[in-house]
Structures are given as structure tokens and as C-alpha cells.
């Protein structure tokens, strides 16, 4: 019965919790790109009129929690989830799971997470980590974005599990149960479903703010920012885009490299060479996202400030949108 828990570092916390827990339960073939791809993690959405941390509300990935749920569903793994209104009950439940020797995923807020550097502590409530044991009053914690394991005191654990505000975790705890071996057939089906769903989201979300159209929407907004917001605020807005796109947790290039890695692995599993070609397209898109970040950086560093510089940033996003659109159209036409 005694299985040993192994810490795995990943780019993104939710992928990481999923990968580690599924591997722990015997699905050794699991990798972060597979979880991300099967769970259709790639997305783009620019929500208008909403500002987060005094900047634009943009995301490069799907809703927190969905990647894990979708990946598990595709592989026939049942996930038990629990939320609590009462802090003592939440702590007692976690302690019981620890006693049973079951590693569990916990959703936490990072504002009070002691091992995060102060510069990274915002009110972001959709971080995920694994609790795999307890020594005296300290939980043994495997945080997927970290190189090594760490610990959290009982008090700190309760505090981060009951962080408040948007996406408040409410003690959210989750773990896979009754994990059966996954056949090649099921894995292949999961990968195809993941690709199809991502394609659908990026090409056919209604309206002009999501998917590849959303990238163009952002480009359109960027052209207006210097006039509308003034140089300083426009610079801060661009900075926020770069942070959402490149900060720890994305794997670089707004998750595009992670998706390209998924397509590369998918091409081997499905024995499909065209997927490898399309993977190259997403590498190209990721590289352009990085180049666009460098460009935006020149503006918020104050080296560039003209309208034409903003236009240049916007033009790059338009170009990225076209590349991704063509790549997804190829995926859409593909026969599996």
C-alpha cells in the first residue's frame, strides 16, 4: 500500500498537482504537457471594462480547476472535491487525509504564502499545492512551481486555504480516487478530445473577446491606450499583459510553448507527423509572444513612447492571432 510521493516541478501549479497526483496513483506516463493538452488548458480571453490589479483582465489559459477536471474525466479518473464553510472542519479533514497517507491537492491564496517572495504576493487565490504529510505541526508541502519541497505551519495553511476575494478557495481540497490503469486507446481519445476542444475554444467562442479574435481585440485596445490612458497608465497596462503572459506558471510565451510541447508528444503517441508541423507553428507563436513582450518592455521602461510604438505592439499581436488561427484551422481539418 505504501507508495512514495515524489515531488515534481512543473511550469504551472494546476498541471503540476494533476501530474504528480496521477503519477502517484500509477499513471507513470503522465507529463505536464499531456495534462495541459488533454485538459484543454490553452485559451485567450480579454474581458472588457474589467480591471484586475489596476490593469487589463487578460488570461492565456482556461478557468482554474478545469484543466485537472477535464484531464481526469478524459482518463476515466474520478476526482473527489470538498469545500468548507468551517475552518476547523477543513483542518480536520486535511489531517485525516494526511493520516490515511493520501497526498491531496489544496487550492490556496498566495497573499499570505510565506515562502513566496513579497514581490509575488498578490491577492491571487487560484494557486495549487500538494500536501503529502505532516511533521509535528508542519504540513509537508509539494508546491509544483518550486524546485524542492517545503513546509507550512498549521496556522499558515489555514490562512492560505481561507484567503478571501475573487476565486476564494474556501478550503478547497481535491484528490483522485480509484485510479485504474489507462489504456492506449483511452489516452489517444483523451488527446484528440483535448485538441478538438482547444481548437473549438480558440476559433469559435462567440463574440470578439475570446480565442484568436480576442488577441486582435487586445491589439485594438492597445492602439487606443496612449490616447485614452496617458503614457504612464498605458505602460502599466502593457506591463500587466507581459506579467500575465510570462510570469512563473506559464512555461513562457503565454503557455504556447507548453501547448507546442503537448502537440509534439501527441504526434508521437498518435503517430501523426502533421501534429509535429503544427507544434512548430505554436513554437513560432510563442517566440512572437516573447518578442512582443520585449517590445512592450521598451515602452514601459520609457525608451519608446510614440503612438507608432504602440501600433507596432498591436501589429505583432495581429500577426500572432493570424498564425494561431491558421494553426488551429489545420487542427480543425485534421482527421484523426
Amino acid at each position, binding site marked *: 500500500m505504501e507508495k512514495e510521493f515524489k515531488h515534481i516541478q512543473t511550469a504551472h501549479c494546476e498541471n503540476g498537482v494533476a501530474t504528480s497526483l496521477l503519477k502517484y496513483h500509477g499513471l507513470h506516463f503522465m507529463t505536464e504537457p499531456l495534462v495541459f493538452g488533454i485538459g484543454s488548458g490553452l485559451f485567450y480571453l480579454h474581458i472588457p471594462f474589467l480591471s484586475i490589479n489596476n*490593469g487589463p483582465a487578460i488570461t492565456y489559459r482556461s478557468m482554474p480547476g478545469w484543466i485537472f477536471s477535464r484531464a481526469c474525466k478524459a482518463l476515466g479518473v474520478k476526482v473527489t472535491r470538498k469545500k468548507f464553510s468551517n475552518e476547523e472542519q477543513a483542518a480536520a479533514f486535511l489531517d485525516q487525509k494526511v493520516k490515511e497517507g493520501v497526498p491531496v491537492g489544496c487550492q490556496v491564496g498566495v497573499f499570505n504564502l510565506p515562502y513566496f*517572495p513579497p*514581490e509575488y504576493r498578490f*491577492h491571487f487565490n487560484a494557486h495549487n499545492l500538494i500536501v503529502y504529510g505532516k511533521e509535528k505541526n508542519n504540513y509537508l508541502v509539494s508546491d509544483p512551481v518550486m524546485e524542492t519541497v517545503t513546509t507550512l505551519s498549521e496556522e499558515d495553511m489555514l490562512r492560505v486555504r481561507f484567503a478571501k476575494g475573487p476565486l476564494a478557495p474556501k478550503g478547497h481540497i481535491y484528490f483522485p480516487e480509484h485510479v485504474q490503469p489507462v489504456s492506449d486507446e483511452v489516452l489517444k481519445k483523451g488527446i484528440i478530445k483535448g485538441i478538438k476542444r482547444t481548437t473549438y475554444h480558440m476559433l469559435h467562442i462567440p463574440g470578439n473577446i475570446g480565442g484568436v479574435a480576442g488577441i486582435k481585440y487586445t491589439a485594438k485596445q492597445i492602439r487606443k491606450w496612449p490616447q485614452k490612458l496617458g503614457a504612464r497608465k498605458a505602460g502599466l497596462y502593457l506591463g500587466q499583459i507581459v*506579467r500575465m503572459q510570462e510570469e512563473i506558471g506559464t512555461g513562457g510565451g503565454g503557455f504556447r*510553448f507548453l501547448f507546442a510541447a503537448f502537440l509534439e508528444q501527441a504526434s508521437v503517441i498518435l503517430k501523426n507527423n502533421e501534429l509535429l508541423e503544427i507544434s512548430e507553428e505554436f513554437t513560432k507563436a*510563442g517566440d512572437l509572444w516573447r518578442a512582443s513582450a520585449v517590445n512592450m*518592455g521598451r515602452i514601459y521602461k520609457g525608451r519608446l513612447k510614440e503612438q507608432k510604438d504602440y501600433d507596432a505592439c498591436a501589429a505583432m499581436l495581429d500577426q500572432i492571432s493570424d498564425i494561431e488561427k491558421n494553426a488551429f484551422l489545420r487542427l480543425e481539418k485534421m482527421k484523426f
Partner: protein
Amino acid sequence: MKEEDLPQDKSALEKMTREICYVKNSDGKYTTGLSTGWDVKKDALDNAWEDIQERTEAARIAVKNGEKSPVFYFMELRIMDFQVLSGYTGFWKFTIKRHLKPNVFQSLSDEKLKRYAKAFDVSVEELKKFKG
């Protein structure tokens, strides 16, 4: 991105960890690499903090001039917006807005002040006595 192009710049992350990025190795295959940070995003983060500090300073002055209550200052200091503060205190957004007025703040009960103090991680005394 190629493995050898993965930036290794100094950043706040060095106190915690190196981060994983997905990069291409010399055979053109995807692999993971560890990065200490990237100046482009470090600058963005530094700018964001500079902005937070300026907002906090402006809030301090507003309290000092009697235009706003200490709640306004601590909100900025703890980088909270109405939604976050509302979550921690249980007050509605429009209630909090009222409490930003110095004269309304003066009349708040200790029980209400306690809820704010807990959210801001300060004592009731500190909150009450804050003059900017």
C-alpha cells in the same frame, strides 16, 4: 525558444526558486529548462510595485489631509480592492465606501473596526490612530 536563449537574469524569484520554462534542445525537441528570471518581466513587476507604492503614498496623504479614513490607506497598503476587502470583512462594497469617509469612520463600533483590523493584519489601535 531555444534552450540556450533561456534568460538567466536576476529577479525576486531567486529567494524562492528557479522557474521551469519549455524550450527546444539542440535536436529541436521540447525539454524543460530552469530560469532565474527575465529582465523584461522583472521590469514589469518593478513598475507595478512602484505604482502600488505611489498609490499608497497618495492614500497616506489623503488620510493626513482628512479627506479619507485610515481604511483607504490600509486598503492600498495591502493591495486590496473592494472585492477582496469585502471578502475578508464581510462588509458590502457600498458600506466600505462609506467607511472611507473620515467622519463615518470616527463613529464605527469596535466590533466593526476589529473586522477591518483583522483583514489588514494590524491592531485596532493602529488602525484607529493612523493619522497619515
